[in-house]
């Protein structure tokens, strides 16, 4: 049986195979980084795009992602074997009010892509946007990501 590790909102975590990292997303973005050589996976669940120095680094795409990569490098991962899959960034279905909340999902995705690019990690799969909630399971045996949304399951195998 695989060891299931829940990653909560604004948390990061990493583990070695065998394990499954799980998170549940609305407008937040889940980042699954996999080292295919070591079979080590790391997950971040970010809440907001940019850190303005007010809160924990784990909350924000631009600080949580470098933090997660550093954590994985310390565990023996190397960037040449690491790729990322991202999911989440949904928006409220109807939003006539609150400009700041309405763009959070999209801005989270943009900032996530930027932070991964700046760290030199390729994004090999994305399951983003729309109005769905997503349950993400990240399997460390082969790095696949399973996304359950609106009653459907989708698998992403590319690493």
């Amino acid at each position, binding site marked *: 049986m695989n060891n299931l590790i829940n990653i909560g909102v604004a948390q990061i975590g990493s583990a070695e195979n065998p394990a499954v990292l799980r998170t549940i997303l*609305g407008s937040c973005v889940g980042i699954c980084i996999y080292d295919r050589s070591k079979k080590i996976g790391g997950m971040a669940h970010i*809440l907001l795009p940019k850190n303005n120095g007010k809160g924990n680094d784990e909350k924000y795409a631009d600080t949580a992602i470098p933090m997660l990569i550093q954590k994985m490098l310390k565990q023996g991962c190397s960037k040449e074997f690491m790729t990322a899959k991202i999911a989440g960034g949904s928006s*409220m279905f109807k939003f006539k009010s609150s400009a700041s*909340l309405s763009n959070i999902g999209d801005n989270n995705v943009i900032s996530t892509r930027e932070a991964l690019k700046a760290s030199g990690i390729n994004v090999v799969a994305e399951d983003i946007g729309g109005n769905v909630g997503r349950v993400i399971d990240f399997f460390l045996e082969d790095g696949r990501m399973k996304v*359950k949304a609106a009653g459907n399951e989708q698998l992403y195998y590319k690493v």
Partner: protein
Amino acid sequence: MHSHIKQRLENIVDNLDQLPSLPDVVSKIINMVNDPNVDFKKVADEIVKDQAITANILKLCNSAYFSKGKEIASIDRAIVILGIREVKDMVVLATTKAVLNKVIMGYDLARGELWKHGVAVAMVSKNIALMKKRRDISDEVFTGGIIHDVGKTVLALFVQNTFKDILTTVEERNITFQEAEKDVMGFDHQEIGERVLEKWQFPPILRAIVRHHHEPQLAPKEYIVPVSIVHVANTICLMAGIGIGSDGLFHELKPEAIDATGLSEDELEKIYSEIPEVMQKAGEIM
């Protein structure tokens, strides 16, 4: 419209036995505390009749969320030190867990997710009330937050059978998930929830929160502010993924609720950005 489902739901809401139950002491306490001439001693006497509830409340009293630093060993002391309204909130926390801490099929919520969602919405609602200087309703939006989705526990089985139709209705008619529930099944989870609260003999303000948490502008005028507070808290918790299910974000943040609460853009963003801290505290009282 699935008329056979509508008929089955009509039977369920007309037959109180099929709706979830709570110990009678809960409505007694809520209604006693709502009375301006409440007798604290009588409230304490009522609570201590039930050992399990008493033990749970004492545990909650000494949690970091409710504690004011002093060790509390009796319900009398809890009422004096923490306040009668806080003790009432603890009674609701201690007793509704059995109803809400379940797998919610149809909405695809694993065990514990709906309970966690209720506790989170309760805490965020209370924070909003305090932020907007409405301490007078902070306990009621907390209680309402815990139970706002209780209707889902009954409707879930039917949502499981009609999910595809509901989602198609959302997309084709450009209406929210809860509006599509009503369209496809004849009832939405708010209406079912209201019937549950009638069975429990909960007061009108809590019934209004459960009945209108997706459409606060339709609530009775005197309850628009508390209902709007829970509406905003619910929206923000779902955006942060707390208790988000197969209905996802197919909902609407109502401009009327922003107006009624008087929340600014900065305040809304602050509430959203502090969800991780809320969840840390929620762990202590779940």
